[in-house]
């Protein structure tokens, strides 16, 4: 398949079409991301609530990149994502003194960024048609221009498929695929049952496959 020159093969992928049981490299442990801040978050929030502005700045420093990734998934372009991140931190600053000590920070932070980004998406609608996805892996040898063009087209179509998803499916797909959250973390962040995460992610993937056309997903 054409992407083989762009993407190094994986054992799981090469075995996927086997007539016998496909070999699936099941990832047993996905690193948790929700607790990245943990104690630091609580300490910085407490500092802010005592009147120390540096507590907020430390939080902002730690979470701005994360906020950008979340916002970009919703708005799809750099300018709107940056705007949404700035507005999110203004809202966080306005509400942080009411944050309950001991509560996990990330779900609260996520809701603010998500809602701000959705407002931004509704109000601005700039640069629709941009594709904010990029390849993780650089090709190890030069593919032909045709292969590059095909891979690029598939990348753009994948994003179009993600954009076409219903909001609840899209959110779960983005959190799992591009934010690296585990099912349990997604359930906690969205405050939904684990089974709902499972079914939404599966539905999202099924619709993306339908959008791409089954035969076009690279083997």
């Amino acid at each position, binding site marked *: 398949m054409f*992407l083989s020159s762009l*993407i190094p093969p*994986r054992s*799981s*992928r090469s075995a*996927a*079409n*086997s*007539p*016998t*049981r*496909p070999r*699936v490299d*099941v*990832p047993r*442990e*996905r690193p948790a991301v929700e607790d990245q801040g943990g104690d630091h978050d609580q300490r910085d929030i407490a500092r802010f609530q005592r009147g120390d502005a540096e507590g907020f*700045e430390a939080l*902002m420093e730690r979470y*701005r*990149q994360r906020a*950008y*990734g979340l916002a*970009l998934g919703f708005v799809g372009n*750099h300018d709107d*994502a940056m705007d949404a991140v*700035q507005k999110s931190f*203004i*809202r966080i*600053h*306005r*509400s942080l003194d*009411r944050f309950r000590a001991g*509560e996990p920070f990330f779900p609260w932070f996520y*809701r603010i960024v998500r*809602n*701000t980004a*959705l*407002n931004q998406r509704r109000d601005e609608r700039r640069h629709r048609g941009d594709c*904010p*996805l*990029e*390849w*993780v892996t650089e090709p190890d040898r030069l593919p032909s221009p045709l292969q590059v063009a095909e891979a690029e087209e*598939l*990348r753009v179509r*994948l994003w179009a498929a993600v954009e076409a998803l219903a909001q609840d499916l899209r959110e779960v797909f983005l959190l*799992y695929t*591009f934010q690296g959250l*585990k*099912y349990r973390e997604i359930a906690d962040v969205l405050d939904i049952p684990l*089974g709902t995460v*499972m079914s939404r*992610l*599966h539905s999202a*993937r099924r619709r*993306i*496959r339908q959008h791409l056309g089954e035969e076009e*997903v690279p*083997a």
Partner: protein
Amino acid sequence: MTARRPFAPETDGPLLSAYVDGELDDEQRELVEHWLDDDARVREEIGRLVRLKAFTDHLRLREPPREAWDDFRRRVVNRRERSLGWTLLLFGGLVIGGYALLRLALVLITAAIPLVVRLGVVLGGIGLLVLLVSVVRERWFVRKRDRYDDVVR
């Protein structure tokens, strides 16, 4: 122990996705592996899911250019300050405007001004008030429609 029930495509699809993601507990994993051994549809579906996952694993959302964070803190602080500034300006304007209106009303009532001038001032004032109310109502309506404003857990 989960019974080794047969695969039901309408309801068991999410288990296959979760299997590919390594998110099943031991019982569920054994069940899916049982289906994998027995059911060609499961093998096909797992194959499709693995291909899609492998494809999306090689993509990520773009990161912002390095310079995007250069003056990020300053921009957030500026926006915050300006938001406060606009609020104070609005309230100050309302106080001064209210006082000016009161004084104007007193002048119109007490001073020896021709009736036509009084009428002109009153009509102009009403027009200005209608415009102001219209703009404020529009802004208020937009704010009320903003379902996500001030989200607090």
